């Protein structure tokens, strides 16, 4: 089954995985072009400040906002994949690497593909834990039996099934039971690794100050629908501008993708109790697993991104799924924003990014409300703001070309580039306002996706009980 076909198809135990390569643009050439664009745009902002004295406040604020985004764009171009010396590589080769795959109502064919890609890595892990978190809709026996019999002999494969308690605790089953791991890899059950993803993802750990590594997430099913294309474009731009800049600026990545990330195991063990015991107004926090682990890493050292460690995730294909997933993310984001303001150093890029985006988001919400209330007066402003934002995002989106995948032709990449303004409008008019809903309802910590059929959200009582109970699990080991 080739990329783009989503989760449909038979379980074949063999798949065609796209290759992905991180491009290395010539810095001098890039900076000449980027410099001209930034200089022209900056000149334009000064022009507005000078010529519109009656609106000086807003023109100055715009200039500041432009300076922040331009700085981020400039810095993001400095990102290069981490490389290692032969001696460092030899040390990395000896590292004990354990992969945790929490599974909940995943389609068997998708999980089968995930395991195929994992066992075809150029650098194999030492242990793989598949934790079935009480799936109610799928039968994994064919996939489980095949891989227990056919996985590489050098890899220890464990397949366990527990009552449903949520992703964080499903991960904790591995984190708490593996005393020898040096690196834990979190891998979603719908995420297919590019063939060299683990090898590349481990390289930043040659630097002892690095505590977590974010992989690059691309859409496996990019071409399935307009929604997957738009999400793919937005995700790519975000990773290669915001996250790239954070990575370059002292290792300040704020969000490791939950789909594929790597962590120093010692750091995870030290923070495990806080990770699974986090509560909000007395309720267990079920969401924001990836962002919490990233925050722990940031408090111990550097959290970086490796642009050459690529994975292919399944993106929502329907409007309903897209909106529910976004709501869930925004609930997690709302809480993590507070934690970042509280726990990160005000001297860090990450703290300032969070502080500025908090301000700009409050302003965005109030401007949106003002536009809605006074649409007649505001419509020309709204149209201009949207078109200027789209033009700017188009420029910033040039970073999209930092990664290439073998299953996309140049025409596909240009088509993605043409979608940028559509993706920006979707982000501005739908997703960003939804963040407000996520913030207001952040106490609601249900997973909200994959509830179709018999799937139900874990209750608070269920989660609280897990720490005390003797696990009722079914174990299958190689």
């Amino acid at each position, binding site marked *: 089954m080739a990329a783009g076909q989503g989760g449909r198809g038979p379980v074949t135990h063999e798949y065609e995985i796209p290759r992905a390569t991180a491009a290395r643009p010539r810095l001098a050439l890039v900076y000449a072009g980027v410099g001209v664009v930034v200089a*022209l*745009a900056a*000149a*334009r902002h000064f*022009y507005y400040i000078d010529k*519109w004295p*009656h*609106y000086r*406040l*807003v023109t100055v*604020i715009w200039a500041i906002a432009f300076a922040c985004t331009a700085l981020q764009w400039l810095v993001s171009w400095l990102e290069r994949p981490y490389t290692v010396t032969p001696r460092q590589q030899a040390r990395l080769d000896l590292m004990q690497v354990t992969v945790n795959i929490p599974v909940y109502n995943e389609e068997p064919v998708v999980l089968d593909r995930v395991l195929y890609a994992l066992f075809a890595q150029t650098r194999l892990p030492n242990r793989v834990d598949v934790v079935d978190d009480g799936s109610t809709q799928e039968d994994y026996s064919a996939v489980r039996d095949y891989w227990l019999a056919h996985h590489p002999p050098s890899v220890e494969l464990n397949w366990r099934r527990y009552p449903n308690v949520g992703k964080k605790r499903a991960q904790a089953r591995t984190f708490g039971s593996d005393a020898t791991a040096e690196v834990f890899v979190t891998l979603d059950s719908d995420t297919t690794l590019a063939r060299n993803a683990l090898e590349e993802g481990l390289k930043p750990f040659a630097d002892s100050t690095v505590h977590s590594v974010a992989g690059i997430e691309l859409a496996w099913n990019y071409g399935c629908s307009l929604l997957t294309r738009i999400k793919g474009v937005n995700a790519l731009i975000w990773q290669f501008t915001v996250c790239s800049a954070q990575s370059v600026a002292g290792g300040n990545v704020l969000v490791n993708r939950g789909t594929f990330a790597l962590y120093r195991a010692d750091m995870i063990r030290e923070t495990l109790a*806080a*990770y699974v*015991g*986090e*509560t*909000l*107004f007395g309720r267990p926090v079920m969401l924001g697993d990836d962002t*919490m682990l990233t925050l722990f890493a940031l408090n111990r050292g550097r959290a970086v991104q490796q642009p050459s460690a690529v994975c292919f995730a399944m993106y929502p294909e329907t409007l309903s799924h897209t909106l529910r997933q976004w709501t869930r993310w925004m609930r997690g984001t709302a809480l993590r924003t*507070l*934690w970042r*303001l*509280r726990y990160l150093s005000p001297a860090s890029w990450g703290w300032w990014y969070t*502080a500025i985006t*908090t*301000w*700009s988001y*409050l*302003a965005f919400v*109030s*401007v949106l409300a*003002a536009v809605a209330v*006074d649409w007649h*007066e*505001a419509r*020309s*402003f709204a149209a*201009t703001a949207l*078109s*200027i934002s789209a*033009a700017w995002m188009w420029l910033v989106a040039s970073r999209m070309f930092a990664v290439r995948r073998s299953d996309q032709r140049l025409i596909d990449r240009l088509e993605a580039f043409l979608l940028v303004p559509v993706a920006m409008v979707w982000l501005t008019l739908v997703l960003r306002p939804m963040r407000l809903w996520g913030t207001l309802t952040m106490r609601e910590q249900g997973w909200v996706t994959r509830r179709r059929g018999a799937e139900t959200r874990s209750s608070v009582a269920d989660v609280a009980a897990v720490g005390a109970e003797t696990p009722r699990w079914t174990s299958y080991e190689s």
Partner: protein
Amino acid sequence: MTVRLVQVLLHIVIPGTAPTPFLSVVGDCFLWSFPASLLIMALVRFGWRRGKGVEDP
């Protein structure tokens, strides 16, 4: 002449717009959001204590 030329070039690169009175409202939104965000930051940074609603991770 040079300044005028640069201005024309800038208008070509980024489409210009006439200022509208609504810009004052936009300015006010940004202005009042600033102390609001400072208040949130101060509360989060110094206000919360363990056991007061949000548990410290």
